[in-house]
């Protein structure tokens, strides 16, 4: 009993620190890349190439004044950012980062991931509701609607992967891709999953909830200091998790042309993250009606078509 417990704790520690660090540096990477895309330098004052910027940001945020508005609902107001950060962290428990490295493995891992995604909606709804601010409430409601609509598309895309692999465990799914990444046989599903991931992480071109031109900052308008940081870091953890899921589900996980291992997983994750940043700084934002129409009339039917084709090919 002693040995597996120790192994579990080490694995959990590595994953938590790794992902929190990755999220912090992802913020820097995004700002740097945004700078290059717009022909400016990005942060370059704190440390060499701005490498200490995340640390500086953290220190600044921790020492900020804590503001809880008297007219907001105190406990729910404090609970909301916590929910966002925790729900973003949860899927990490079942992601296999390397052939023999995952915090734990359960035989319904994909459902667990979906459950965490569906509970994340509460952070947004409660944050918007508890702030007692018009922008927050409208932003919260919109986000909730967006997240639930694209959650269905995401779930339907996942069913295609389950059909191919015959298992809900991410470890088995990666193992099934040793010879052929699901990117190729599940290309339609991959596209649906990719698009719904942008929407689930609330990133451009689906960053309607915080559309600054119309809603100030959406559901986190009234949040400051560490509470704001939780929303912010939650979004970046969400990105890391999304990239990890994409890698494990469609890009062959730890497999690569040579020796399989964590390096392939990390490389693929980095590419997916680069894609997400690239898209954000390239495309304009959708309108809310366009977003809903796209989700319900294009993505969901597309995912079902993908399922039908996959099923027929498998039974052939």
């Amino acid at each position, binding site marked *: 009993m002693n040995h*597996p417990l120790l192994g579990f704790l080490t694995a*959990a520690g590595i994953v*938590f620190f790794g992902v*929190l660090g990755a999220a912090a540096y992802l913020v820097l990477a995004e700002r740097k890349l945004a700078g290059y895309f717009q022909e400016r330098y990005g942060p370059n004052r704190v440390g060499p190439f701005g490498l200490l910027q995340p640390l500086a940001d953290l220190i600044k*945020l*921790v*020492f*900020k*004044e*804590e503001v809880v508005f*008297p007219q907001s609902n105190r406990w729910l107001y*404090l609970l909301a*950012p*916590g929910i966002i*950060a*925790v729900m973003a*962290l*949860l899927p*990490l*428990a079942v992601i296999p980062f390397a052939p023999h490295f995952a*915090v*734990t493995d*359960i035989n319904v891992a994909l*459902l667990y991931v979906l459950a965490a995604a569906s509970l994340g909606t509460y952070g947004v709804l409660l944050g918007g509701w508890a702030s*007692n*601010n*018009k*922008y*927050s*409430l409208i932003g919260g*409601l919109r986000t909730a*609607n967006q997240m*639930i609509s694209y*959650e*269905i598309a995401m*779930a*339907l895309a996942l*069913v*295609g992967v*389950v*059909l191919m692999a015959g*298992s*809900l465990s991410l470890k088995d799914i990666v193992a099934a891709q040793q010879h052929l990444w699901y990117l190729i046989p599940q290309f339609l599903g991959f596209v649906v999953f990719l698009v719904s991931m942008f929407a689930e992480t609330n990133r451009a071109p689906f960053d309607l909830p915080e559309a600054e031109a119309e809603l100030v900052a959406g559901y986190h308008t*009234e949040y400051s200091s*560490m*509470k704001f*940081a*939780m929303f912010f870091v939650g979004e970046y953890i969400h990105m890391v998790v999304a990239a990890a899921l994409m890698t494990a589900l469609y890009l062959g996980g730890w497999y690569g042309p040579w020796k399989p291992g964590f390096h392939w997983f990390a490389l693929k994750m980095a590419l997916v993250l680069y894609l997400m940043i690239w898209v954000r700084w390239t495309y304009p934002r959708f309108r*809310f009606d366009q977003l*809903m*129409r796209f989700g*319900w*009339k294009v993505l*969901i039917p597309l995912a*079902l078509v993908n*399922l*039908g084709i996959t*099923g027929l090919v*498998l*039974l052939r």
Partner: protein
Amino acid sequence: MGAYLSLAVFVLVAVAIALVTMGLAIILRKRGRPEGEKYQNYECGEVPQGTPWIRFHAGYYLVALIFILFDVEALFLFPWALTLKHLGILAFVEMTVFVVILLLGWLYAYKKGAIEWV
């Protein structure tokens, strides 16, 4: 069951991380004085007008309702996907009937403009 126990511990650690970071900020924060307008809700620098509790468009509710139904459908698809190879073409036909019946509902929503958002 061991895997679920580890999962539970993982969840607790995640919660602890959130609590510690937010608690740290509460300990280290700068203490300010509540001054008149400082604690008012933000409304583009103006004094807030009225209440945020307007009635929202019923479309939000409708989308949430249709979402539940499609969520249930998607969850029925998971066990189906797990055993399709084993159960063969019959299960495929069964699921096609199931999905087609639900798609009738989708078509109805489409025709009635329920997923149209204007």
